[in-house]
């Protein structure tokens, strides 16, 4: 029970970001890092301690996720968006049995990409807010491609790993009403929020007041590594699906 409460907390099943945001000591970047690290810890812990989901925990995390979805639609900052995605996906972490941690691991890798993009925006455009820096696809297509990859991965677009693990776990789970409500709501939540951000961040006319900067070698390498990790996870995810099918 205690371990499950711990995992619920670490996995973002309780919206602690609400308190952190109110405190002046935590920037959105530090909340992102903190929640990302806690989720990683939770994922690692699941390999060592037994995880069983109980209905109240799922309900709590689902309510937290709904609040996170609402918050995600209100922000245009990549850091904030990043940690809202963690809280949005917490019910999956709780709900998915067995090796359900792989879904969260894929999410963490995609969010690493979002973090890299947020830092890039912060460094060159003064903020991780994407609304002002529109027209990325026209100005710096490489950045646009990376944003697209990370967001469609979080948005559960196949063949990226999030969607593959999501599919595997939904096939393997026992469905009940709560399961249906959570899975369907969060599937659309992830998808719609990602698409909304994608539309607002990478399309549109270039802003004439901005000096657009492309990725340097280091940044390219970092993004390349993240994409490779996503591909590896995709391969593993495909294997899982094939095993289930066969």
């Amino acid at each position, binding site marked *: 029970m205690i371990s499950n409460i711990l995992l619920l907390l670490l996995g973002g099943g309780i919206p602690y970001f609400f308190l952190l945001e109110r405190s002046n000591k935590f920037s959105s970047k530090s909340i992102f890092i903190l929640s990302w690290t806690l989720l990683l810890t939770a994922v690692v812990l699941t390999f060592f301690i037994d995880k069983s989901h109980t209905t109240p925990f799922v309900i709590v995390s689902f309510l937290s996720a709904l609040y996170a979805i609402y918050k995600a639609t209100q922000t245009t900052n990549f850091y904030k968006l990043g940690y809202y995605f963690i809280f949005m996906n917490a019910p999956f972490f709780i709900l998915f049995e067995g090796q359900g941690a792989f879904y969260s691991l894929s999410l963490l890798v995609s969010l690493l990409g979002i973090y890299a993009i947020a830092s890039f925006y912060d460094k060159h455009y003064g903020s991780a*807010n994407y609304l002002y820096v529109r027209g990325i696809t026209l100005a710096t297509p490489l950045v646009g491609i990376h944003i697209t990859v990370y967001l469609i991965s979080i948005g559960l677009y196949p063949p990226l790993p999030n969607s593959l693990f999501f599919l595997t776990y939904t096939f393997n789970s026992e469905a009940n009403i709560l399961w249906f409500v959570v899975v369907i709501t969060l599937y659309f939540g992830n998808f719609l929020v990602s698409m909304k951000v994608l539309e607002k961040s990478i399309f549109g006319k270039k802003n004439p007041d901005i000096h657009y900067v492309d990725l340097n070698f280091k940044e390219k390498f970092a993004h390349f590594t993240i994409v490779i990790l996503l591909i590896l996870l995709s391969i593993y995810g495909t294997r899982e699906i094939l095993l289930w099918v066969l």
Partner: protein
Amino acid sequence: MGIIDKLNAVKNTVPHYWPIGSFIHHNPLKGFEHLSFKDGLNKAQKTYGGKVYMEPSYYLKFYNEGKISHSILEENLKEVLEEDGLAKYYDLAMKCLLEVNPQWNHFRKQADSKDHEVDEELLAYLDDEFSYHNKERWLKQITKNMTLYEINDILFHRDDKEAIEKSIIEYVARFLDEDQTTLSMQNRELGMFETFKLYEDFDYPHDSEKFVEEAFEKLRVKNKERYLLNHLLKLHGWAGFIKYRSEDPNYYSQQQYPSSLMDYMAIRLYYEIVYLEHREINNFDLLHEYSLKNSAYVILKMIKYKYNLPGKYIDAMESSKNYEDILERYVQEELQLDAKQVHLSNDILKNSDIPLVELAKIMEILREEEGYIWLKSLEDTYIHKFIDEMKLTENSQNERPLASVTMCLDVRSEIMRRAIEKSGPYTTYGAGGFLGFPISFVEFEKAHEQFLCPAVITPQNIVFELPIETNDEYKSKKTINKTTKSVVSSLKNNPYTPYIMVEAIGWIFGINLFGKTFLPQKTEKFFSNFKAKKPQTTYTLDKLSDDEIEMYVNKLHLHIIHEAVVSNSSQKYSQEDLQAIRDHIILGKALSVDISEELLQKIQENYNVSTKDYEFQKLKLASVGFTLEEKVEYLYKFLTMIGQTDNFAQFVILSGHASISDNNPFESALDCGACGGSSSLPNNRALCMIANSQDVREKIAKKGIIIPLDVKFIPMMHTTSTDEVAFYDTHILSEEEHKKFAQVVEDFKKASSIARRERVTQLPYTSSENDIMIKSMDWSETRPEWGLAGNMGVFAGPRDSIKHMAFGNRLFMHSYDAQLDNENADILTRIFNGPLVVGEWINLEHYFSTVDNAIYGAGSKVYHNVVSKIGVLNGNYSDLKIGLPTQSVLLEGEAYHEPVRLLTYMEAPLELVAKAVENSVAKEFILNEWIRPVIIDKKAKKVYSYESGDFKVIKEF
């Protein structure tokens, strides 16, 4: 001033939009032509918010390439500086133009990272200039073009705009549909607003005007004229189309289903009120109150919506509610950036004499003027080059050519014309494709009239196309095709059959799909075997006698009555009975046939067999064909207009033109602009038939034009996408003439090939003549030809003066001999009234579609969907896209078309031109310099340019 007057005062801001099936090029800023070009563009920029000139870097590139002459740029800059009282700053202004202004935006980006001390006085000036600390003024500026629902959306995170515009588009597209849908809207004959009441099921006893008035009361609109304009501009494509059809009494669809801009306004306001009904702010009084209380928040939200608020302030708005503080920080940063831009410019200019505030003012004026300075310099450079190259001596008489060809003045004739002239003893002429011969044409097997003339003219004569040979094969193929089409269409539109249809016969469509993709030429050839080949035809060019008219109207009525009785009665009626019914209805004769009163009434009301229709049909038929006097007059006017009154070639070829392309809703934009976006072949054929008739030749000889007996007028068709030519009605030639004509055919074939080879170098992804051919049949080709892109000028004068010059399909050419014109300049006036008007529309449509395709153009063809058979949408719903698609004016994102005003060269005495301008309908746009008139007066040995309200001598020779 009533609502209707207010609407009338603003409605011309949106231009007419003609249905895409007969694409009419138009000036999108037609409503601004009462102002000078420069003022009109400034006003339009404020109204539409789009660009009106190219970026300075575009012109700077031309300047560096030598395409813009330095001395001309100098002259134009001086002129503008003098007008603005800044002549003493010439050196500084030139440096600004060449070095500072192209980098102006870049300075702002740089300013961020460059530390610079900022002049306090400059800061104060900039603060005042941009109203940063006058929130009410700022707010007014920022919301000037917005509707209440847009403001509401921005302030309260709503999405009403999306829903409102979608609802409007849905209704309007369905109401205006011209048979694209299989499920037409009911009751459209009631009119746009009346049908809307049924559509939305709301009970309202008054008309649209009253509704708009009441809506304005509800919304507490202060500046009603401005608000009407705001609404018009939201979907200005749709508004432009409704405006066009409501102002064209001959538009059939409008006659059937009336609409008006007032109806459209009422519909827009209805949705605005419905959606705002339960919103916190649903009228302008409440908005004003709210804005006063929360001015900083409202301003920040507006700036954010316009994507001008940097990310850090958006973050701040998310985490804090101290909006006054956020706005102040934003203002201070903006001021610093504005000031640093001036400082950085000052550094480049190495200025130490002029105070920074003064410099900021000068640069502000220069940024406003630079577009015009660059544009005029580019135009002037072209003008001087043209004048230097053209032949300024009097033209000599040539020997009798074997053939003369009159081609459309269209720019696309230019290469072909040169190629023909090179191919043998041929002379060429240019004229508006309709040849000054407007006709209302009813094509073989078609039921509707096409007005083959410029959109500003309404033709008075109807011409029918009739077969002159047996057409059994045509009929049987046509019937098979029609039946197949109808079966496929029924299967497609039936709710149950599409799935089965796809399974059963879907693969047949695959042949077309793969064939057209991989083997377009062979597939085209294969499918052409199934197409019905039109039989040889002739035109009805003679007037009908009264008896004939009576007979045709009678026949028509009997046919309709027959249909009516068959559909509505089980009783059999003989031909005599039908005649008796008709005579009873039309002539009021006593009725001897047993027919119910109800059916009689139905025939009159539903089938429109009435005395009114009888008179209408008689009137219509009376305009079929031409009297001998009319024929002679049209031919005389045509020949004198192009200056071909003697030395006739044995074969006088009149060439129409059209374009062929596949899967192209804009196809008619590539046809003849002077024929309302249709093929100009019928005008050319009809005039040839007239010119070949003996009685016309006898009569025209009395007017001084003697056409020798051996001269034959032969119509030709020039397909502009492939540069192929085809001759018509050659059966009138004798065997002897045929032999001679064979040489002409052969030479013209060679000329086609020469023209294609020249065009290969202009078209992208084209390396051979065959590629050009494929483009005309490739269904994925978005650019089958360049069309009128690149057009830059028109020459009206003898062909000999510019025969030696090559323009690469960029110059319109109208033959004109000033010596044949009278004192009143009637011929030149006619050229101004038709071809010049069309030329200006074409030119400015290309101009504006290039400078800002998002506002004045149609966007990319790739996303287009045809809607209601009247135009295209972007995606599944959007504004009706006006203007030209990007593929018509841009190449890989860069301008292919060079936007310049129509450089109008006229070889004529100055007085004659002045007279023609005075008499012409084009007077307004000529005098307001929406074109660039250049007069080559060979008698006075001077070249004039019309600038700033005066004729200025630009060359003496």
